């Protein structure tokens, strides 16, 4: 008998960003609160994360999202987001993927044409509205946790790119956000590798120079992602952006390590952070629609519902709409003699050699040759 571990997933994409929705893994996650569960995942489930997101089952652009039981009375379910950079509390595209999967597989009881849901995350409760037609989720709108700008036009010193004005914002994760024109890069699909390079530098420089901490959750304490934004040539879009996701350690002294991969969607949490920055500048009013476009031409539509405070920060309550599509039903399996139980990466597509890939090669040589 082949010994085989199985993980059930519904593969979805939201505006082009793939999200492997993990239905059925919740019994592996311990903890009473979402914050405890996020911490549990970080401490105990990193092997699962690598197996799902690294090769051969994953690839640099892939994310996943764990569906968990709700924490609060009246909530429908909880999520922990699984990204190349680690476990995260919240992600707009992954939330959209989760809702799409849960509704369209019949896992969640729903009513048409509108179902409201409450989703628990480690950064707070997210209210969701799903527009459903004929069993199909045609739009997911989520009221995200309060977003705020920590700094606007902060002069961040970068190797090679010089000093670039950046916004440090929170939109569900902490972002450093910069204008494409300040980096000397065109915001078009053909520039993907240039954008990745600059994005890796932005994020690492911000992590080193700009300590952050979420006033309500001290475990959320570093700049997780970078965004490069600018105007869009598309008439109905308010702007275009790309968020750069890490895929290996970055050394600011070694340009060979300036790698990563792009969020294929317009990025929900990044869009919330961007809207907070625009509001702080007086450039986006409450209720005004903000159509954010990705490099692929897909869009999320955001708006600010109200103002609030988070600790010392003036904050906004953002709402984001997008759409997801199921692309497949996936059982990831791991044979007990597979030489790569945590997957592997290679430097042509990923960051420089990681510990995972070194360990993987050792497992192969220990196994012996045919």
């Amino acid at each position: 008998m082949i010994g085989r571990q199985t993980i059930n997933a519904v593969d979805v994409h939201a505006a082009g960003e793939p999200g492997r929705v993990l239905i059925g893994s919740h019994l592996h996650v311990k903890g009473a609160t979402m914050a405890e569960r996020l911490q549990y995942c970080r401490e105990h489930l990193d092997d699962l994360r690598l197996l799902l997101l690294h090769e051969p089952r994953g690839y640099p652009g892939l994310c996943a999202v764990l569906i968990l039981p709700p924490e609060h009375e009246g909530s429908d379910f909880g999520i922990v987001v699984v990204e190349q950079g680690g476990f995260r509390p919240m992600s707009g595209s992954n939330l959209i993927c989760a809702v799409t999967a849960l509704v369209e597989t019949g896992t969640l009881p729903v009513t048409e044409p509108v179902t409201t849901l409450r989703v628990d995350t480690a950064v707070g409760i997210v209210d969701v509205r799903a527009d459903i037609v004929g069993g199909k989720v045609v739009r997911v709108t989520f009221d995200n946790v309060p977003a705020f700008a920590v700094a606007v036009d902060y002069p961040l010193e970068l190797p090679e790119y010089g000093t670039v004005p950046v916004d440090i914002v929170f939109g569900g994760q902490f972002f450093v956000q910069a204008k494409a024109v300040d980096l000397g890069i065109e915001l078009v699909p053909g520039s993907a590798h240039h954008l990745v390079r600059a994005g890796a530098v932005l994020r690492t420089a911000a992590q080193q120079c700009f300590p952050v901490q979420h006033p309500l959750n001290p475990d959320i304490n570093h700049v997780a992602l970078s965004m490069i934004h600018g105007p869009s040539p598309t008439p109905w879009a308010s702007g275009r952006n790309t968020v750069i996701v890490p895929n290996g350690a970055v050394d600011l002294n070694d340009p060979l390590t300036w790698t990563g991969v792009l969020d294929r969607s317009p990025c929900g949490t990044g869009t919330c952070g961007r809207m907070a920055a625009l509001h702080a500048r007086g450039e986006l009013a409450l209720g005004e629609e903000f159509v954010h476009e990705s490099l692929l031409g897909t869009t999320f539509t955001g708006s600010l519902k109200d103002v609030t405070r988070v600790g010392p920060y003036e904050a906004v309550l953002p709402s984001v709409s997008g759409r997801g599509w199921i692309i497949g039903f996936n059982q990831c399996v791991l044979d007990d003699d597979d030489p790569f139980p945590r997957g592997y990466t290679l430097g042509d597509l990923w960051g420089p050699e990681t510990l995972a890939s070194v360990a993987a090669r050792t497992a192969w040589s220990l196994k012996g040759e045919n």
Partner: protein
Amino acid sequence: MQLNNLVDVVGCHAAGEVGDVVVGGVGNVPGETMFDKRNYLQNHRDDLRLRLLREPRGNVIRNVNVVLPSNNPKALMGYVIMESTEYPTMSGSNTICVATVLLETGMLPMEEPVTRFTLEAPAGLIDVECQCRNGKVTSVRFVNQPAFVYQLDATIDVPGIGTLVVDIAWGGMCYVIVDAASAGFKLDPTEGRELRVMGERIKAAAIEQLAPAVHPVHPEYPGITNLSFTNPPERVDGVVRARNAVVVSPGRIDRSPCGTGTSARLAVMHARGQIGAGEHFIHESILGTTFDAVVESTTKQGSIDAIIPSIAGQAWITQLIKVGFDPTDPFPAGYTLSDTWLEPMYAYETTA
């Protein structure tokens, strides 16, 4: 929820290289031989390849094999191989994956300790010998179609490097074989990004500057589409060993030691007297995985001296997938982005 063109895929990797196998949902594909069926899919159903190989359902490291009944009475099953920029006539890692999946899913009956049968690849009949234990295929040795040298010591001029001396050889795909050191590489995993860019550049230069590589028996087979960076072979305890990094278009490294690349290299080594019939050649990938290759016998292809190589490796099932597309999906044929899927450096036979 509605998913169109629902296709059943068994995910698999051989020595680290993904070779997923479509086991259902495609139906009948017209064509007498597997090469005919390959042409049909390429010319009429390329949407299937694009959907499965491009994001968000696929990615640049993915290969897919469509298992189809064979009209050849000697073959139990056939398969059409789909890769990022082409439909190759043969592929070693994919063959190992196909054999493993067919046996481990029970599509073909498994006999322990050895199951032997014949598959039909687009390149022709491939005999396989599978070591099996407790329901698992622990090794697949396949006998490839003939491999041979097109040209030894061809000179090309490559922007950024200068003059390079390369060998051109066929092993089921046509390879530019480059000594890694001559191009400035040690075949260290840290060289990944440079290897993939330079590999594509050298490939494009060879295609442009050398006479087209026309297969002497099958002129309809593709010319140069692949490239291998190699380090010199050495004998260790009576076994010949070497490393290589194959750069697959649009620009990424084969995670396995590459079956067709190993076959092509074996033809070059045999032509140079570096290996004899029956000797084992352990070929290692940049990931550290290995294939075991043997020159089984010699033959001819037209008037060209050729070898019959066999390659052994192991594969593991990774996923069981049902994949399709929602009729409102904006990407039914997927998309590519140049952070992972490089822009083309030469004209591919198929457009992606």
